[in-house]
């Protein structure tokens, strides 16, 4: 019997285990540089270095959109961030199909630019915002939020955006405004799912004005330090981390201030299953399944135990007072 040891010359470690990552990445950058040709050599070198410097933080798929540290308390969870690959390939965005792999496959047709968002209804200064104007309206911040889907799974996502209240302040809601409605894109030409009758298009969502003005409610333009992938709701969406994911409308084209509770897409589809509030609540089951636990995507693979779901998705300290005196069972 022959015994192989590391001295026997057969069991070489893999090259990638001896060579430091930085070294081989630099070599690759050099190769790329050579491939780019002598013409743009100097420029390519700079660009390559830039790309390397950011590769650690961002997936390098889309344009960078860095977010500064937020001054709002409790908006950066320390939990392990979900892999970008999972967060951008496991989505519910029915305009692109009902299977969770559909949006990543079909959303490339969405044109995130040019894009405008109409703000109208009970406001003193209704107007149409261009997406570039919205991007500059307030400093972009990074918010690492838990996301809990009504289906019983969850992720942790580093969003980039600013509190929706920044926009709300600028349009000056009238005293009569009590709710905010979000209308999202429903373009048959680029969204195959809009031809189906799964939901009543366009997908609309809504919040009470005080919910919309809560600093946790985010107007998001990016995630993982880059602009939003189409399948995650490019170019602009809201993120309401204490509510089930479907409340966070994607690819918004209109924000309307009203005095009546707006009809929402899922509420219209199944009134008894998806209420207007839809706050994450482990004690109020979905009529067809329990909401007591959740599967954290990417955590421990096949054999991972599910986690216990937290009231208001763990944001009770921040948002609990919004619902003081309300029966959360009745107002599900």
């Amino acid at each position, binding site marked *: 019997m022959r015994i192989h040891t590391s001295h026997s010359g057969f069991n070489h470690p893999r090259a990638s285990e001896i060579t430091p990552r930085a070294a081989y990445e630099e070599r690759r950058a050099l190769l790329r540089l050579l491939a780019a040709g002598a013409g743009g050599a100097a420029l390519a070198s700079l660009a390559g270095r830039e790309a390397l410097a950011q590769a650690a933080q961002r997936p390098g798929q889309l344009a960078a959109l860095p977010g500064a540290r937020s001054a709002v308390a409790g908006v950066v969870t320390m939990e392990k961030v979900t892999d970008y*690959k*999972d967060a951008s*390939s*496991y989505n519910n965005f*029915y305009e692109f199909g*009902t299977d*969770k*792999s559909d949006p990543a496959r079909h959303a490339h047709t969405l044109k995130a630019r040019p894009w405008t968002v109409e703000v109208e209804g009970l406001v003193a200064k209704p107007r149409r915002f261009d997406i570039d104007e919205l991007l500059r309206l307030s400093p972009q911040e990074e918010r690492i939020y838990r996301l809990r889907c009504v289906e019983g*799974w969850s992720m942790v996502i580093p969003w980039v955006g600013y509190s929706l209240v920044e926009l709300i302040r600028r349009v000056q809601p009238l005293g009569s405004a009590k709710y905010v409605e979000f209308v999202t894109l429903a373009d048959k030409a680029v969204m195959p799912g809009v031809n*189906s*009758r*799964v*939901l009543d298009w366009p997908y609309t969502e809504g919040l009470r004005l005080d919910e919309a003005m809560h600093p946790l409610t985010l107007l998001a333009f990016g995630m993982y330090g880059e602009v939003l992938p189409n399948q995650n709701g490019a170019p602009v969406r809201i993120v309401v981390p204490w509510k089930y994911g479907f409340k966070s409308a994607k690819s918004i084209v209109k924000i309307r201030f009203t005095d009546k509770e707006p009809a929402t897409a899922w509420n219209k*589809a199944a009134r008894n*299953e998806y209420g207007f509030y839809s706050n994450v609540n482990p004690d109020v*089951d979905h009529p*067809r*399944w*329990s909401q007591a636990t959740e*599967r954290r*995507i*990417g955590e421990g*693979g*096949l*054999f991972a*135990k*599910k986690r216990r779901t937290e009231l208001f998705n763990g944001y009770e300290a921040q948002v609990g007072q919004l619902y003081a005196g309300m029966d959360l069972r009745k107002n599900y």
Partner: protein
Amino acid sequence: MAKGLLHAAAMHPAAKPVLHLLCLLPLAWLVYAAAFDALGANPAEALIRSLGDWTLRLLCVTLAVTPLRRLLGLPALARFRRMLGVYSFAYATLHLLAYAGFDMGWDMAEILRDVAKRPFILVGMCAFVLLLALAATSFNRAMRWLGGRRWQLLHRSVYVIALLALLHFFWMRAGKNDFAEVAVYAVMVGVLLLARIGLFFGRRSKA
């Protein structure tokens, strides 16, 4: 000519081993995908659903044996019926185990609560219990012990199982109002069921 070839293929000594391999292929792929993290973002869900899909597919193939045998005039196809039925049961068992283990964490109390809470789980469980009865009486000895007529009566419940499996699938998808895939299976089961009823009455009128 074509019939002769089909008959020869069905009677070939390699026919059964080949069919075994074909039936094991989806499982082999799933085991591979699970081991190499190729099941996507939610591997537990992907595994459970895929095992369910294959159960339904194998049930359809099993149900197709008799109509095809008659339609093509190929009695040799009957050799494969039991084997296909037992594979349907095997995939159903794995589907159930994957649900119990990966979704419910082997918590019996939790599973019982879930059966009571979700009608589609209850329907799936009923289908499985019936399928278990058929698998348990799939041996020649069981057939002799029950007697041909009673055995056949019991095993006709495979149609009930197919309908329950379909309802299980329909109800699971109802949350998304998405019935396109369910409709495909419903048409298949429907056609197979009608073919069977047609054959039954056809045989009667001849007698």
